[in-house]
Protein backbone atom coordinates (compact mmCIF):
# COMPACT_ATOMS: atom_id res chain seq x y z
CA UNK A 1 0.00 0.00 0.00
CA UNK A 2 1.28 3.47 -0.92
CA UNK A 3 0.95 6.58 1.22
CA UNK A 4 -1.80 8.95 0.09
CA UNK A 5 -1.95 12.73 0.56
CA UNK A 6 -4.47 15.48 0.00
CA UNK A 7 -2.71 17.97 -2.28
CA UNK A 8 -5.52 20.37 -3.08
CA UNK A 9 -9.02 21.41 -2.03
CA UNK A 10 -11.72 23.51 -3.71
CA UNK A 11 -14.69 24.88 -1.80
CA UNK A 12 -17.51 27.35 -2.42
CA UNK A 13 -19.85 29.33 -0.17
CA UNK A 14 -22.68 27.31 1.38
CA UNK A 15 -26.11 28.44 0.25
CA UNK A 16 -29.59 27.33 1.14
CA UNK A 17 -30.32 27.35 -2.54
CA UNK A 18 -27.99 28.01 -5.42
CA UNK A 19 -30.31 28.92 -8.26
CA UNK A 20 -27.58 30.81 -10.11
CA UNK A 21 -25.68 27.60 -10.92
CA UNK A 22 -26.75 24.22 -12.25
CA UNK A 23 -25.11 21.21 -10.61
CA UNK A 24 -22.71 21.13 -13.56
CA UNK A 25 -21.49 24.70 -12.98
CA UNK A 26 -21.25 24.07 -9.22
CA UNK A 27 -18.95 21.14 -10.02
CA UNK A 28 -16.82 23.19 -12.39
CA UNK A 29 -16.28 25.94 -9.82
CA UNK A 30 -14.91 23.66 -7.10
CA UNK A 31 -12.88 21.48 -9.48
CA UNK A 32 -11.16 24.61 -10.81
CA UNK A 33 -10.58 25.69 -7.21
CA UNK A 34 -9.00 22.39 -6.21
CA UNK A 35 -6.76 22.27 -9.30
CA UNK A 36 -5.62 25.85 -8.63
CA UNK A 37 -4.98 25.06 -4.96
CA UNK A 38 -2.86 22.06 -5.95
CA UNK A 39 -1.18 23.87 -8.84
CA UNK A 40 -2.36 21.14 -11.23
CA UNK A 41 -4.09 21.09 -14.59
CA UNK A 42 -7.10 19.05 -15.63
CA UNK A 43 -4.83 16.65 -17.52
CA UNK A 44 -3.06 15.62 -14.31
CA UNK A 45 -6.20 13.90 -12.96
CA UNK A 46 -6.34 10.19 -13.80
CA UNK A 47 -9.42 9.08 -11.85
CA UNK A 48 -12.61 10.58 -10.39
CA UNK A 49 -14.61 9.55 -7.32
CA UNK A 50 -18.05 11.14 -7.07
CA UNK A 51 -19.70 11.70 -3.70
CA UNK A 52 -23.34 12.23 -4.64
CA UNK A 53 -25.99 11.24 -2.13
CA UNK A 54 -29.37 11.54 -3.83
CA UNK A 55 -30.34 11.57 -7.49
CA UNK A 56 -34.02 12.18 -6.82
CA UNK A 57 -33.20 15.51 -5.16
CA UNK A 58 -31.23 16.55 -8.24
CA UNK A 59 -33.93 15.53 -10.73
CA UNK A 60 -31.28 13.52 -12.49
CA UNK A 61 -30.43 9.84 -12.40
CA UNK A 62 -26.89 8.80 -13.40
CA UNK A 63 -25.50 12.31 -12.89
CA UNK A 64 -21.87 11.18 -13.03
CA UNK A 65 -21.69 10.62 -16.78
CA UNK A 66 -23.08 14.12 -17.31
CA UNK A 67 -20.41 15.49 -15.00
CA UNK A 68 -17.57 13.49 -16.58
CA UNK A 69 -18.63 15.03 -19.87
CA UNK A 70 -19.07 18.57 -18.56
CA UNK A 71 -15.70 18.53 -16.79
CA UNK A 72 -13.95 17.13 -19.85
CA UNK A 73 -12.94 13.87 -18.17
CA UNK A 74 -14.04 11.61 -21.04
CA UNK A 75 -11.96 8.45 -21.11
CA UNK A 76 -11.07 8.54 -17.40
CA UNK A 77 -12.35 5.95 -14.94
CA UNK A 78 -14.90 7.10 -12.38
CA UNK A 79 -16.99 5.66 -9.60
CA UNK A 80 -19.85 7.08 -7.60
CA UNK A 81 -20.25 6.35 -3.89
CA UNK A 82 -23.57 6.57 -2.04
CA UNK A 83 -23.97 5.99 1.70
CA UNK A 84 -26.68 8.40 2.88
CA UNK A 85 -25.30 11.36 4.80
CA UNK A 86 -22.06 9.40 5.28
CA UNK A 87 -21.51 9.32 1.50
CA UNK A 88 -18.55 11.69 1.67
CA UNK A 89 -16.58 9.67 4.18
CA UNK A 90 -17.19 6.49 2.19
CA UNK A 91 -16.04 8.35 -0.95
CA UNK A 92 -12.82 9.47 0.76
CA UNK A 93 -12.27 5.87 1.87
CA UNK A 94 -12.74 4.63 -1.72
CA UNK A 95 -10.47 7.32 -3.20
CA UNK A 96 -7.81 6.48 -0.63
CA UNK A 97 -7.95 2.79 -1.58
CA UNK A 98 -7.67 3.52 -5.29
CA UNK A 99 -4.57 5.67 -4.83
CA UNK A 100 -2.99 3.49 -2.11
CA UNK A 101 -3.41 0.38 -4.25
CA UNK A 102 -1.69 1.94 -7.24
CA UNK A 103 -4.83 1.91 -9.36
CA UNK A 104 -4.62 5.72 -9.56
CA UNK A 105 -1.85 8.28 -9.01
CA UNK A 106 -3.99 11.41 -8.78
CA UNK A 107 -7.68 11.10 -7.95
CA UNK A 108 -10.24 13.89 -7.87
CA UNK A 109 -12.99 13.54 -5.27
CA UNK A 110 -16.02 15.59 -6.26
CA UNK A 111 -18.68 16.06 -3.58
CA UNK A 112 -21.87 17.57 -4.93
CA UNK A 113 -25.54 17.83 -4.06
CA UNK A 114 -28.41 20.11 -4.84
CA UNK A 115 -30.60 19.64 -1.79
CA UNK A 116 -33.28 22.28 -2.10
CA UNK A 117 -34.90 22.01 -5.51
CA UNK A 118 -37.81 19.94 -4.20
CA UNK A 119 -41.03 21.97 -4.07
CA UNK A 120 -44.56 21.21 -2.96
CA UNK A 121 -46.84 23.11 -5.35
CA UNK A 122 -49.92 22.39 -3.23
CA UNK A 123 -48.60 24.00 -0.04
CA UNK A 124 -46.15 26.25 -1.95
CA UNK A 125 -43.42 25.08 0.38
CA UNK A 126 -39.87 24.01 -0.39
CA UNK A 127 -39.61 22.38 3.04
CA UNK A 128 -42.69 20.19 2.49
CA UNK A 129 -41.33 19.16 -0.89
CA UNK A 130 -38.03 18.24 0.68
CA UNK A 131 -39.58 16.25 3.50
CA UNK A 132 -41.78 14.24 1.13
CA UNK A 133 -38.93 13.57 -1.25
CA UNK A 134 -36.44 12.86 1.52
CA UNK A 135 -38.80 10.32 3.05
CA UNK A 136 -37.73 7.53 0.69
CA UNK A 137 -34.25 7.88 2.21
CA UNK A 138 -35.69 6.19 5.28
CA UNK A 139 -36.72 2.55 5.46
CA UNK A 140 -39.95 2.87 3.52
CA UNK A 141 -41.49 -0.23 5.11
CA UNK A 142 -40.69 0.22 8.81
CA UNK A 143 -40.02 3.97 9.29
CA UNK A 144 -41.60 6.13 6.63
CA UNK A 145 -45.25 5.43 7.63
CA UNK A 146 -44.67 6.34 11.30
CA UNK A 147 -42.37 9.36 11.17
CA UNK A 148 -41.79 12.52 9.16
CA UNK A 149 -38.50 12.99 7.34
CA UNK A 150 -36.94 15.04 10.10
CA UNK A 151 -33.32 14.41 11.08
CA UNK A 152 -33.96 15.48 14.68
CA UNK A 153 -36.42 12.66 15.08
CA UNK A 154 -34.27 9.98 13.51
CA UNK A 155 -31.36 10.90 15.74
CA UNK A 156 -33.61 11.40 18.79
CA UNK A 157 -34.17 7.66 18.72
CA UNK A 158 -30.51 7.43 19.67
CA UNK A 159 -30.08 10.61 21.75
CA UNK A 160 -32.95 10.14 24.21
CA UNK A 161 -32.00 6.60 25.28
CA UNK A 162 -28.38 7.80 25.46
CA UNK A 163 -29.33 10.54 27.91
CA UNK A 164 -31.45 8.13 29.94
CA UNK A 165 -28.69 5.55 30.06
CA UNK A 166 -25.64 7.75 30.67
CA UNK A 167 -27.14 10.83 32.35
CA UNK A 168 -26.00 13.27 29.68
CA UNK A 169 -25.70 15.48 27.77
CA UNK A 170 -27.97 17.99 29.51
CA UNK A 171 -30.15 20.41 27.56
CA UNK A 172 -27.85 23.27 28.64
CA UNK A 173 -24.80 21.44 27.33
CA UNK A 174 -26.55 20.81 24.02
CA UNK A 175 -27.43 24.52 23.77
CA UNK A 176 -23.84 25.57 24.50
CA UNK A 177 -22.48 23.17 21.88
CA UNK A 178 -24.87 24.78 19.35
CA UNK A 179 -23.73 28.28 20.31
CA UNK A 180 -20.13 27.16 19.78
CA UNK A 181 -20.88 26.16 16.19
CA UNK A 182 -22.76 29.41 15.45
CA UNK A 183 -19.74 31.32 16.79
CA UNK A 184 -17.34 29.29 14.65
CA UNK A 185 -19.43 29.96 11.53
CA UNK A 186 -19.09 33.67 12.20
CA UNK A 187 -15.41 33.36 11.30
CA UNK A 188 -16.05 31.26 8.21
CA UNK A 189 -16.87 33.51 5.25
CA UNK A 190 -18.22 30.45 3.36
CA UNK A 191 -20.75 29.57 6.09
CA UNK A 192 -24.44 29.69 5.19
CA UNK A 193 -25.40 31.44 8.43
CA UNK A 194 -23.64 34.36 10.07
CA UNK A 195 -25.86 34.89 13.03
CA UNK A 196 -25.36 35.74 16.69
CA UNK A 197 -27.16 33.01 18.60
CA UNK A 198 -27.25 32.88 22.40
CA UNK A 199 -27.90 29.94 24.69
CA UNK A 200 -31.37 31.38 25.40
CA UNK A 201 -32.06 31.68 21.66
CA UNK A 202 -31.28 27.99 21.28
CA UNK A 203 -33.40 26.95 24.26
CA UNK A 204 -36.33 29.17 23.27
CA UNK A 205 -36.43 28.12 19.63
CA UNK A 206 -39.17 25.73 18.60
CA UNK A 207 -38.98 22.17 19.92
CA UNK A 208 -38.68 19.75 17.01
CA UNK A 209 -38.29 16.51 18.94
CA UNK A 210 -37.53 16.84 22.63
CA UNK A 211 -34.85 17.78 23.73
CA UNK A 212 -33.82 19.02 20.30
CA UNK A 213 -34.87 22.53 19.26
CA UNK A 214 -34.66 24.19 15.83
CA UNK A 215 -31.35 25.80 16.73
CA UNK A 216 -29.88 22.41 17.58
CA UNK A 217 -30.68 21.13 14.05
CA UNK A 218 -28.59 21.24 10.90
CA UNK A 219 -29.29 23.52 7.96
CA UNK A 220 -30.03 22.16 4.51
CA UNK A 221 -28.12 23.33 1.48
CA UNK A 222 -27.03 23.23 -2.14
CA UNK A 223 -23.30 22.63 -2.00
CA UNK A 224 -20.17 21.27 -3.64
CA UNK A 225 -16.50 20.84 -2.85
CA UNK A 226 -13.56 18.97 -4.33
CA UNK A 227 -10.37 17.34 -3.05
CA UNK A 228 -7.35 15.99 -4.88
CA UNK A 229 -5.62 12.86 -3.55
CA UNK A 230 -2.14 11.89 -4.74
CA UNK A 231 0.29 9.04 -4.20
CA UNK A 232 3.40 9.81 -2.12
CA UNK A 233 5.62 10.15 -5.17
CA UNK A 234 3.24 12.56 -6.91
CA UNK A 235 2.40 14.41 -3.71
CA UNK A 236 6.06 15.24 -3.09
CA UNK A 237 6.32 16.65 -6.63
CA UNK A 238 3.12 18.68 -6.26
CA UNK A 239 3.45 20.29 -2.84
CA UNK A 240 5.74 20.81 0.12
CA UNK A 241 2.65 20.85 2.35
CA UNK A 242 0.96 17.49 1.82
CA UNK A 243 -1.69 16.41 4.29
CA UNK A 244 -1.50 12.63 4.59
CA UNK A 245 -4.43 10.32 5.11
CA UNK A 246 -3.11 8.09 7.86
CA UNK A 247 -6.33 6.39 8.91
CA UNK A 248 -9.64 5.59 7.24
CA UNK A 249 -12.48 3.26 8.17
CA UNK A 250 -16.19 2.76 7.77
CA UNK A 251 -18.60 0.76 9.91
CA UNK A 252 -22.29 0.09 10.32
CA UNK A 253 -24.58 -0.09 13.33
CA UNK A 254 -27.45 -2.57 13.52
CA UNK A 255 -30.48 -0.41 12.90
CA UNK A 256 -33.54 -2.65 13.00
CA UNK A 257 -32.19 -5.04 15.62
CA UNK A 258 -32.45 -2.53 18.44
CA UNK A 259 -31.80 -4.17 21.80
CA UNK A 260 -30.78 -3.12 25.31
CA UNK A 261 -27.13 -3.60 24.24
CA UNK A 262 -27.09 -1.11 21.40
CA UNK A 263 -29.88 1.38 22.03
CA UNK A 264 -28.56 4.90 22.65
CA UNK A 265 -25.19 4.06 21.14
CA UNK A 266 -23.44 4.96 17.90
CA UNK A 267 -21.50 1.72 17.71
CA UNK A 268 -20.61 2.23 14.04
CA UNK A 269 -18.72 5.34 15.08
CA UNK A 270 -17.02 3.48 17.93
CA UNK A 271 -15.86 0.68 15.64
CA UNK A 272 -14.82 2.91 12.70
CA UNK A 273 -12.84 5.16 15.04
CA UNK A 274 -11.03 2.25 16.66
CA UNK A 275 -10.02 0.91 13.25
CA UNK A 276 -8.91 4.33 12.00
CA UNK A 277 -6.91 4.97 15.19
CA UNK A 278 -5.16 1.60 14.86
CA UNK A 279 -4.27 2.39 11.24
CA UNK A 280 -2.97 5.85 12.17
CA UNK A 281 -1.15 4.65 15.30
CA UNK A 282 -3.23 6.85 17.60
CA UNK A 283 -3.68 5.66 21.20
CA UNK A 284 -4.89 8.72 23.07
CA UNK A 285 -7.05 10.60 20.53
CA UNK A 286 -7.87 13.50 22.84
CA UNK A 287 -4.17 14.35 23.22
CA UNK A 288 -2.99 13.30 19.78
CA UNK A 289 -5.48 15.26 17.66
CA UNK A 290 -5.49 19.02 16.98
CA UNK A 291 -9.06 19.25 15.76
CA UNK A 292 -12.09 17.10 15.13
CA UNK A 293 -14.93 17.59 12.66
CA UNK A 294 -18.04 15.59 13.60
CA UNK A 295 -21.50 15.17 12.14
CA UNK A 296 -23.73 17.64 14.01
CA UNK A 297 -26.92 16.61 12.24
CA UNK A 298 -28.33 17.64 15.60
CA UNK A 299 -26.18 18.89 18.48
CA UNK A 300 -26.90 15.67 20.35
CA UNK A 301 -25.19 13.69 17.59
CA UNK A 302 -22.12 15.91 17.95
CA UNK A 303 -21.86 15.37 21.69
CA UNK A 304 -22.47 11.62 21.44
CA UNK A 305 -19.72 11.51 18.79
CA UNK A 306 -17.19 12.91 21.29
CA UNK A 307 -17.93 9.88 23.43
CA UNK A 308 -17.98 7.20 20.74
CA UNK A 309 -14.77 8.60 19.22
CA UNK A 310 -13.15 7.95 22.60
CA UNK A 311 -12.41 11.63 23.35
CA UNK A 312 -14.05 11.01 26.75
CA UNK A 313 -16.07 8.35 28.57
CA UNK A 314 -19.69 7.59 27.72
CA UNK A 315 -21.93 10.25 29.28
CA UNK A 316 -19.05 12.72 29.66
CA UNK A 317 -19.42 14.45 26.27
CA UNK A 318 -21.27 17.40 27.75
CA UNK A 319 -18.37 18.06 30.10
CA UNK A 320 -16.07 18.70 27.13
CA UNK A 321 -18.49 21.52 26.24
CA UNK A 322 -18.71 22.88 29.80
CA UNK A 323 -14.92 22.82 30.18
CA UNK A 324 -14.41 24.64 26.88
CA UNK A 325 -12.29 21.82 25.44
CA UNK A 326 -14.18 21.73 22.12
CA UNK A 327 -14.31 25.49 21.56
CA UNK A 328 -12.03 27.07 18.95
CA UNK A 329 -9.55 28.23 21.60
CA UNK A 330 -9.88 25.01 23.62
CA UNK A 331 -7.54 22.01 23.76
CA UNK A 332 -9.45 20.10 21.07
CA UNK A 333 -11.61 22.34 18.84
CA UNK A 334 -14.60 20.66 17.18
CA UNK A 335 -16.38 21.87 14.03
CA UNK A 336 -14.26 24.97 13.55
CA UNK A 337 -16.06 25.78 10.27
CA UNK A 338 -19.43 26.09 12.02
CA UNK A 339 -20.53 22.52 11.38
CA UNK A 340 -23.79 21.45 9.82
CA UNK A 341 -25.78 23.62 12.21
CA UNK A 342 -24.33 26.93 11.03
CA UNK A 343 -22.03 26.34 8.05
CA UNK A 344 -24.34 24.05 6.13
CA UNK A 345 -25.38 20.49 5.46
CA UNK A 346 -26.40 18.27 2.66
CA UNK A 347 -25.67 14.57 2.33
CA UNK A 348 -22.71 13.90 0.06
CA UNK A 349 -20.94 17.20 0.76
CA UNK A 350 -20.76 18.33 4.40
CA UNK A 351 -18.30 15.61 5.47
CA UNK A 352 -16.04 16.38 2.52
CA UNK A 353 -16.19 20.07 3.41
CA UNK A 354 -15.30 19.09 6.99
CA UNK A 355 -12.29 17.22 5.59
CA UNK A 356 -11.33 20.34 3.58
CA UNK A 357 -11.56 22.34 6.81
CA UNK A 358 -9.07 19.96 8.46
CA UNK A 359 -6.70 20.29 5.49
CA UNK A 360 -7.03 24.08 5.67
CA UNK A 361 -6.37 24.14 9.42
CA UNK A 362 -3.39 21.77 9.21
CA UNK A 363 -1.90 23.84 6.37
CA UNK A 364 -2.59 26.95 8.48
CA UNK A 365 -4.71 28.50 5.75
CA UNK A 366 -7.85 29.01 7.87
CA UNK A 367 -7.62 32.78 8.29
CA UNK A 368 -9.57 34.26 11.21
CA UNK A 369 -10.55 30.85 12.52
CA UNK A 370 -7.04 29.32 12.44
CA UNK A 371 -6.38 27.07 15.41
CA UNK A 372 -3.00 26.37 16.98
CA UNK A 373 -1.46 23.35 15.27
CA UNK A 374 0.56 21.16 17.67
CA UNK A 375 0.39 17.49 16.68
CA UNK A 376 -0.63 18.18 13.09
CA UNK A 377 -3.48 15.66 13.19
CA UNK A 378 -7.21 16.02 12.57
CA UNK A 379 -10.19 13.65 12.45
CA UNK A 380 -13.36 13.74 10.36
CA UNK A 381 -16.42 11.67 11.33
CA UNK A 382 -19.65 11.54 9.36
CA UNK A 383 -22.75 9.48 9.89
CA UNK A 384 -25.94 8.51 8.18
CA UNK A 385 -29.13 9.62 10.01
CA UNK A 386 -29.23 7.34 13.02
CA UNK A 387 -25.47 6.67 12.91
CA UNK A 388 -26.29 3.44 11.11
CA UNK A 389 -23.31 4.15 8.85
CA UNK A 390 -20.14 5.92 9.93
CA UNK A 391 -16.95 6.94 8.16
CA UNK A 392 -13.86 8.20 10.00
CA UNK A 393 -10.83 9.73 8.27
CA UNK A 394 -7.62 10.82 9.99
CA UNK A 395 -5.35 13.45 8.45
CA UNK A 396 -1.77 14.33 9.36
CA UNK A 397 0.32 17.08 7.91
CA UNK A 398 3.69 16.14 6.46
Amino acid at each position, binding site marked *: MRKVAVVGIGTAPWQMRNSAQSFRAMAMEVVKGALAHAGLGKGDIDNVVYSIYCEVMMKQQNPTILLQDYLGFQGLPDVRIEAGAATEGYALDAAYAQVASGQSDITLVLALQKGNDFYDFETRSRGDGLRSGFAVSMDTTWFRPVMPGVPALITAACLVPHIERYGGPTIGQLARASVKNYENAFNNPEAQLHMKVTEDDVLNSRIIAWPTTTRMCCLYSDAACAMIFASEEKAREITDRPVWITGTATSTHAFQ*RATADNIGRMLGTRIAAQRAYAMAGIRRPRDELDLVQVHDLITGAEVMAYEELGLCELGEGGRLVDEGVVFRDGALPVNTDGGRIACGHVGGVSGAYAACEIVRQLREEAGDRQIRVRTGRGLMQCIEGHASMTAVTIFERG
Partner: protein
Amino acid sequence: MESKPRQAPFELPFTDWKPEYLYSLGELSPFFREIVDNQRLLASRCPGCGKVWMPPRGDCPDCYETTEWVPISGEGRVVSCTYCYFPGANVDLIAHIGLPYVFAVIELDGADTYMFHAVKPPSQKMNEVRSGTRVKPVFREKRTGTIGDFYFVPAD
Protein backbone atom coordinates in the same frame (compact mmCIF):
# COMPACT_ATOMS: atom_id res chain seq x y z
CA MET B 1 -46.06 36.03 -14.21
CA GLU B 2 -43.94 39.15 -13.80
CA SER B 3 -41.04 39.44 -16.19
CA LYS B 4 -37.54 38.97 -14.81
CA PRO B 5 -34.20 40.30 -16.00
CA ARG B 6 -32.48 38.11 -18.60
CA GLN B 7 -29.66 37.13 -16.27
CA ALA B 8 -31.97 35.97 -13.44
CA PRO B 9 -32.04 32.16 -13.11
CA PHE B 10 -34.92 30.61 -15.03
CA GLU B 11 -36.88 28.27 -12.77
CA LEU B 12 -38.75 25.38 -14.29
CA PRO B 13 -41.69 23.82 -12.44
CA PHE B 14 -41.04 20.12 -12.94
CA THR B 15 -44.23 18.29 -12.14
CA ASP B 16 -44.57 15.67 -14.83
CA TRP B 17 -42.63 13.04 -12.88
CA LYS B 18 -44.34 11.76 -9.78
CA PRO B 19 -43.18 8.23 -9.06
CA GLU B 20 -45.99 5.97 -7.95
CA TYR B 21 -45.44 2.33 -7.13
CA LEU B 22 -47.29 -0.94 -6.83
CA TYR B 23 -44.88 -2.24 -4.24
CA SER B 24 -44.67 -5.93 -3.33
CA LEU B 25 -44.23 -6.75 0.33
CA GLY B 26 -42.94 -10.17 -0.66
CA GLU B 27 -42.19 -12.53 2.22
CA LEU B 28 -43.63 -9.98 4.68
CA SER B 29 -47.09 -10.30 3.09
CA PRO B 30 -48.58 -12.45 5.92
CA PHE B 31 -47.67 -9.75 8.46
CA PHE B 32 -49.45 -6.97 6.59
CA ARG B 33 -52.38 -9.17 5.51
CA GLU B 34 -52.96 -10.04 9.18
CA ILE B 35 -53.06 -6.32 10.05
CA VAL B 36 -55.48 -5.47 7.25
CA ASP B 37 -57.78 -8.50 7.62
CA ASN B 38 -57.64 -9.36 11.32
CA GLN B 39 -56.14 -6.39 13.19
CA ARG B 40 -53.51 -8.61 14.74
CA LEU B 41 -49.71 -8.48 14.90
CA LEU B 42 -47.39 -11.30 13.98
CA ALA B 43 -43.72 -11.60 14.81
CA SER B 44 -41.11 -13.80 13.15
CA ARG B 45 -39.34 -16.52 15.11
CA CYS B 46 -36.12 -18.22 14.08
CA PRO B 47 -36.33 -22.05 14.38
CA GLY B 48 -32.53 -22.12 14.75
CA CYS B 49 -31.80 -19.75 17.63
CA GLY B 50 -35.35 -19.11 18.84
CA LYS B 51 -35.06 -15.33 18.62
CA VAL B 52 -38.28 -13.45 17.92
CA TRP B 53 -37.66 -10.58 15.54
CA MET B 54 -39.73 -7.39 15.55
CA PRO B 55 -40.00 -5.80 13.05
CA PRO B 56 -40.32 -9.23 11.49
CA ARG B 57 -37.83 -10.59 8.98
CA GLY B 58 -38.14 -13.46 6.55
CA ASP B 59 -34.68 -14.69 7.43
CA CYS B 60 -32.69 -14.75 10.67
CA PRO B 61 -29.60 -12.57 10.27
CA ASP B 62 -27.72 -14.69 12.81
CA CYS B 63 -28.50 -18.25 11.59
CA TYR B 64 -29.70 -17.61 8.03
CA GLU B 65 -32.70 -19.85 8.83
CA THR B 66 -36.08 -19.03 7.34
CA THR B 67 -38.25 -17.66 10.14
CA GLU B 68 -41.75 -18.78 11.19
CA TRP B 69 -44.72 -16.55 11.97
CA VAL B 70 -45.88 -16.40 15.59
CA PRO B 71 -48.78 -14.34 16.98
CA ILE B 72 -48.03 -11.66 19.58
CA SER B 73 -50.48 -9.66 21.67
CA GLY B 74 -49.17 -6.33 20.38
CA GLU B 75 -48.87 -5.01 23.93
CA GLY B 76 -45.52 -3.83 25.16
CA ARG B 77 -43.43 -1.31 27.05
CA VAL B 78 -41.92 2.00 25.97
CA VAL B 79 -38.15 1.69 26.29
CA SER B 80 -37.44 5.30 25.34
CA CYS B 81 -39.29 8.05 23.50
CA THR B 82 -39.30 11.60 22.22
CA TYR B 83 -42.16 14.06 21.77
CA CYS B 84 -42.30 15.26 18.18
CA TYR B 85 -43.78 18.71 17.46
CA PHE B 86 -42.97 18.79 13.79
CA PRO B 87 -45.58 18.02 11.12
CA GLY B 88 -44.54 15.36 8.69
CA ALA B 89 -45.29 16.09 5.08
CA ASN B 90 -47.68 13.48 3.76
CA VAL B 91 -47.36 11.16 6.74
CA ASP B 92 -50.93 10.00 6.91
CA LEU B 93 -50.65 8.46 10.40
CA ILE B 94 -49.36 11.68 11.96
CA ALA B 95 -52.16 13.68 10.34
CA HIS B 96 -54.54 11.10 11.90
CA ILE B 97 -53.21 11.13 15.49
CA GLY B 98 -52.13 14.80 15.65
CA LEU B 99 -49.19 16.64 17.20
CA PRO B 100 -47.32 16.33 19.38
CA TYR B 101 -47.03 12.62 18.95
CA VAL B 102 -44.57 10.31 20.62
CA PHE B 103 -41.92 8.56 18.57
CA ALA B 104 -41.00 5.59 20.70
CA VAL B 105 -38.72 2.62 20.97
CA ILE B 106 -41.08 -0.16 22.03
CA GLU B 107 -40.36 -3.61 23.45
CA LEU B 108 -43.32 -5.73 22.41
CA ASP B 109 -44.16 -8.64 24.70
CA GLY B 110 -42.59 -11.81 23.35
CA ALA B 111 -40.15 -10.05 20.99
CA ASP B 112 -36.36 -10.03 21.40
CA THR B 113 -35.77 -6.78 19.47
CA TYR B 114 -37.32 -3.35 19.84
CA MET B 115 -39.54 -1.63 17.32
CA PHE B 116 -39.74 2.09 16.50
CA HIS B 117 -43.34 3.29 16.36
CA ALA B 118 -45.81 6.08 17.13
CA VAL B 119 -47.69 6.50 20.43
CA LYS B 120 -50.62 8.88 20.75
CA PRO B 121 -50.59 10.63 24.15
CA PRO B 122 -54.21 10.71 25.47
CA SER B 123 -54.41 14.52 25.86
CA GLN B 124 -51.35 15.49 23.80
CA LYS B 125 -49.48 16.55 26.96
CA MET B 126 -45.80 16.03 27.73
CA ASN B 127 -44.84 13.17 30.05
CA GLU B 128 -48.05 11.21 29.63
CA VAL B 129 -45.95 8.67 27.82
CA ARG B 130 -42.45 7.96 29.08
CA SER B 131 -39.92 5.18 29.51
CA GLY B 132 -41.69 2.24 31.13
CA THR B 133 -45.23 3.17 29.99
CA ARG B 134 -47.22 0.07 28.99
CA VAL B 135 -48.80 0.45 25.57
CA LYS B 136 -51.26 -1.40 23.34
CA PRO B 137 -51.98 -1.09 19.63
CA VAL B 138 -55.04 0.62 18.16
CA PHE B 139 -55.88 -0.41 14.61
CA ARG B 140 -57.27 2.22 12.29
CA GLU B 141 -60.56 1.88 10.47
CA LYS B 142 -58.86 2.37 7.12
CA ARG B 143 -56.01 -0.13 6.69
CA THR B 144 -53.95 -0.41 3.54
CA GLY B 145 -51.03 -2.64 4.52
CA THR B 146 -48.46 -0.38 6.17
CA ILE B 147 -47.25 -0.10 9.76
CA GLY B 148 -49.12 3.22 9.75
CA ASP B 149 -52.32 1.13 9.88
CA PHE B 150 -51.98 1.13 13.66
CA TYR B 151 -50.48 3.17 16.44
CA PHE B 152 -50.02 2.72 20.15
CA VAL B 153 -51.79 4.20 23.17
CA PRO B 154 -51.13 3.76 26.91
CA ALA B 155 -52.54 0.38 27.99
CA ASP B 156 -54.26 1.51 31.19
